[in-house]
Structures are given as C-alpha cells and as structure tokens.
C-alpha cells in the first residue's frame, strides 16, 4: 500500500517536473492560431468587422469574441476558409458588417480638387496616400487595398473608388460551362 503510494507519488513528481520544464522550455511566443486566422483574412484593413484592422479581428476570432462572418471584403470565400480552419460551420456574411464587394476597387484622388488637408492620409490604414499639408495628395494605386476609409474624411469629396481595370497581366480564363448532366428520363427509359 505504502509502496504503491510512494511509487505513484514519485512518478507524479517526476512527470510534474517534466511538464513544468517543458512549459518553460518550449513556451510559444504569441498565439499561432491568430497568425493562421490572419493569413486567411484579405488584409484590406477596412475595419468593417468592427475591429481596427485584420489582425485585431483575427485576435478577436481566436479569443471567441468575434464571429467568422464579419469580413465583407473577404466574403464567402474567407468565411469558408475560416470555418475550415476552426472546424465550424460556414454561415452567410453578417449584413450588419456590410455587403460583399463584387469587384475590386481602388481610391483615386481628383487632384485638381484636393486642398491638401491630410485627413485622408491619416485615415489610410496602409499608408498608401502620399502628400503633405497644403500640397496635393495622391494614392499609390499598387498599395491601395480599396478599404474606402479615406472617402468619408475628405472635406471636398475628391476621392472616388474606381473599379480595378483588367489588363492582359491580370486577365483570367473564364470557367468553361459545366458538362451537361445526363438526361435522366432518356437514360431511365
């Protein structure tokens, strides 16, 4: 009886020490789940999910504070990918967060109207607007995510969201029409 207690106690001590050592030695910095979720988000940084950027939203999902259907730019594709990753059921996009965008857009500043107030520069989450006080601003198109955050602050309404034009480099073959299904009545007859 006593031997058994002692033996088990000793084992418990050994494993406890091992686990304790492992917890210190193999400590993971940061939350790997947040990284994985963040990698699936479109990185538009638009804040439509209610969080100030994609990473904060990823953190909130990982903590269970936000649902997976709050990202309009990612749309259904992102929801399905998140559902896959987290082992949940996909659900439709929450309409409170906005509508899924059909086509990609970028911001364009009408430069003759711009008064150089820098409000859009402060609003841009990815520093894609170039300019200085009382100097004309312009959008670095390549870096614009199309988040529309710069549109509202502009006091002279000189920012337009224009659809991204398809060129030869970005052109895609359209999916061929799906093969016809076998006419059921004919085959049964």
């Amino acid at each position, binding site marked *: 009886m006593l031997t058994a207690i002692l033996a088990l106690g000793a084992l418990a001590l050994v494993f406890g020490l091992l686990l304790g050592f492992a917890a210190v030695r193999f400590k993971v910095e940061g939350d790997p789940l947040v990284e994985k979720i*963040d990698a699936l988000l479109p*990185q538009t*940084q638009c804040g439509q999910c209610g969080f100030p950027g994609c990473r904060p939203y990823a953190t909130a999902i990982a903590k269970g504070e936000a649902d997976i259907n709050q990202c309009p730019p990612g749309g259904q594709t992102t929801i399905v990918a998140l559902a896959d990753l987290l082992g949940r059921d996909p659900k439709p996009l929450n309409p409170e967060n906005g509508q899924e965008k059909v086509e990609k857009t970028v911001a364009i500043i009408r430069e003759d109207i711009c008064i150089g107030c820098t409000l859009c520069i402060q609003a841009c989450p*990815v520093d894609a607007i170039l300019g200085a006080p009382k100097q004309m601003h312009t959008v670095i198109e390549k870096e614009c995510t199309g988040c529309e955050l710069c549109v509202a602050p502009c006091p002279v309404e000189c920012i337009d969201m224009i659809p991204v034009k398809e060129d030869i480099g970005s*052109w*895609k*073959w*359209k999916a*061929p029409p799906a093969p016809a299904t076998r006419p059921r009545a004919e085959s049964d007859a």
Partner: protein
Amino acid sequence: MSTRPLFSFFGGVHPPMHKDVSTGQPIDVMPLAERYILPLHQNIGQPAKPVVSVGERVLKGQRIGHAEGYVSVALHAPTSGTIADIGAYPVPHPSGLSDNCIVMTADGADEWTECVALPDYENINPSHLRNIVREAGIVGLGGAGFPSFIKLNPGTHKKIDTLIMNGIECEPYITCDDMLMRERAAEIVAGIRIIRHALQANRVLIAIEDNKPQAIKSIEEAIRGESAMEVVACPTRYPQGSEKQLVEALTGKEIPSEALPLHVGIVVHNVGTAAAVYRAIMLGEPLTSRIITVTGGGVAQPRNVEARIGTVIEDILAHCGGPTAETRKLIMGGPMMGFALHSDRAPVVKTTNCLLAATAEEIPDRGPALPCIRCGACSDACPARLLPQQLFWYAQAKDLDKIQEYNLFDCIECGCCAYVCPSNIPLVHYYRFAKTEIWAREREKEKAELARQRFDFRQTRLEREKAERAARHKKKRDELHSEEPSAAPATETKKAAILAAMERAKKKKDAPRITPANTEALTPQQQQMIEEVEQRRRQSRPNPEQQSAASNGDK
C-alpha cells in the same frame, strides 16, 4: 538521313495534318503596308520599354524598344517612317484586351538603319554574341517566344552535349518552318553553326518529321560536309515538337518536372530562330519579319508569307484573298494549341506562326460537353504523363491546391486529352482556367502580404510617434520639476530684481517731474508768487504719493 534507332515519347495523337493546303506556293513577301502596330510585350518575360517618342522618324531596323530586365529583348522598327502613337491597341491575345503598342506610319522609303555584320563570329566572345542576339530582338520563333539569348548561354557548370534543332512542326495546318527549310536551308545551317559555336555543343541533331521529305532533303544538302550535324527524320506524331517530348524522342532522356533540357546537357532551338540568328550576326539585321502560314478554307490563296512584325492581320488575310464568307473562326496558331482571335485589327507578333481562317467543316462544333465517363483515354494520350481527368475534376471543383499536387503546371496545353475525349469536354480550357486562377490567387496573396506589412509598419510608426511624444512631454515635465529645489534662491533674486526695479521707479517718481524752466533772473515779486503757489500745492496735496499720482494724471 539518320538511320539511328529512335526512342519515343509517351502518348500523343495523330490528327489530320492538312499541311498541303499551304505548301503549294513559295514564300511570298508581303508588300509594304501603311501602318504597323508593334506590341511592346511579344515575348515571355518583361515587355520592352519604348525609346522613341511620338512624331519621331525612325529607320528600318532601328531599335524602338529597349530590353527591360533580364528576361526581355529589344524591339525594332519594321520599316522606315514616323512614330504615330504609343498607347493601348488590340493585341493578339485570347482575352481580346488591348496592351501597350508603338504604332508606326511607313514612309514608303523602307530605308535601313546602319547594320553591323560580324562574319567573323568565331573569334567573338560568346557572351558578346548573346548580347547581339538579345539586342536583335530574337525570341524562340516556334511559338512560345522565350528570349533566345538565354538559351545560348550554356552556364558555367554544364557542358552542352547535344544541340537539337527543332524542325518538327507537328501541329496541323502550320508549314512555316517546312517552307523555310525548303527555301532557305543555307541560312538555317549558317545560323546553326553560330548557335553551336555559342554553346560549344558537341553535336547537332536537326529533327524533322518524316512528313516533310522536301525539307529533309534540302537541309541534308545544306549540311553536306558538316561532320557534327545530322538530320533525324522522326515518325510523325503530335506533339513531337514540344521541347521535352522532342528530347525524349531523340535521346530517350526524360526531363524532370520544372527542369530544362539544359539539365541533361541539351539545348533545343527552333529552325526559324537559327535563320534569325544568322541574319542578326552575319548581316546585322534585327528581327523585323517572320514567315507566317496563312491557311484554312477561309482564305482563297493559302500560302506562307514573310510578313513584317506588326503587320495588321486584316492586311495579311486580304493579301491571301480572305477572309471569305465561309470563315467561321480566326485562329492564331494551329487548331490544337492556337486561340481564337477577337479582332483582325490586331497585329502579328514575333510568335505568330500561323493564321488559320477556319470554316465550319474545319473546326466542327463538337456539341455540348457530356459528363466524364472515366474512360482514361486522356491519360493514355497525355505526353506529359499527367492524369487529365483528375485535373479536370479539381479544376471543376476549383480545388486549386489539389490540382497543383497533380502537377497542373507540367501540362503543356497540347490539347491531346481534349482531342481524344469522347465526351467533348474542353479539358485544356479547364487547365488554362485553373492556371490563371492560381496566378490570380498568388497575386492576391502577395498584395495581402504587402498590405499586412504596411499596416503593421503603420501601427509601429503610430506607436513610436506616440511614445516619442510622451517622452518629450515627460522630459519637459521633468525639467520643470528639477528646477524646484533651486526655486528659493531663484525667487530671491527675482524678488531682489523686482525690488530694485521698484526702487528705480520710486526714485524716478520722487524726482521732480517738471524741472522749472526760466527760473533765472526772476523778479522778487515773481519769486514770491511761485512760493505761494507751491505753498498752496503742498497744502492741497499733503500726501507726496498722491501728489505724484496726481501729477502723473495731469500729465
């Protein structure tokens, strides 16, 4: 002709060739047109960068586009004339979209720029030769358009054993290489010698399919006396002209996925490219024209034409008596690998080997696609040894990860699978769709990564600025606090200063404000009056401070 036992490649098909449609007449040189459209992007890799401006006069062969980046070649004016425009024009592309082009108006003089020939190429450094080929704008004329100078570089570690000259031309209808070999064998062989010299290759195999007996004969005559060159007549089978399949058919060596023939000590060049290299080195002429097969039931006089790069397709078809009313489809390339053109206003480019104006009988409507019955005919036909039906399933399901596991990018889009498919499934269309989807996804990923980095950077920047501001404020606060211990002496001195100032002010005030003037030589009477006034003044304002204040007020 070689009697060597041939190896073979896997799969392939035997479509009807229709080669004799366009071999009845000799190569016809297209007359000078009024207008040429030169797309800046005519090769695999980076587009050329324009080095001329609108309105500038250029000569034939003058460089108008500069090779930008490594995988790029120069672009030249096809005739003398003026630059009419630089902008977006329709280009021959399956999308039908426009791209950047240089538009030229010919002046009719067709005046050459100065050409520097190097007949003494054997004594020239191969790297200099490569540079000339690059500056001459030469790309693989077989159809893919890979910059040829890169394939003239054997690298530092690899010895080139075999140079294969590709005169296979396995695709139906196309005969431009056939006619070139028949008529200009000497140019081709001269070009082969230059390429062999640049690569220092041991031997040269000139591969020609056995359905071109005249070309075989003509080349054999041209290489008489060349010990290292050999013509190999290959049994006709599509797609033998594809680089990897040709290497396998001639040498039995299989080139691994994502590798080049260079890895097994082999380099493959097209025979048309050899002729272009000859012109660039021996005559100093850059690539400004090529042989194009104009064929199909939609043209009255199908034949091969030598057209300048940039000639509008409409002009070429008209020159050959087309397109007739029966034309249903205009295809650039052959019926297996070509693509339908959206407009005949687009120009021909360096990679245009064939214009097929096909009638309804030539490209029959195969009817709607039926479900896959898993017969496996496509797998037997696939020369890349892929599993076309698996690729089809995954493309249909848009499973872009899985389809790459099945080596989608080893697909050469030869069309054998779709050709044998009993269900008429447009398989190649599915693979092209999947490839562009994958590329688009890669671009999205890159863009998202850039946005993430910039967002993170901005966050760090904002935090840093906040911290800096806080630090500044703290420093200021600290400075104020650090002054407090010495505050007492400081106030003492201040107080002293204030007191001193007050003293001065008082002295000033006490001093008589008005110095009486004209007080000399007063009569005793006047003196008395003054004293009386002073007396009264003292009596009415006994307080001297009040007095001074009052005197201030009076003032």
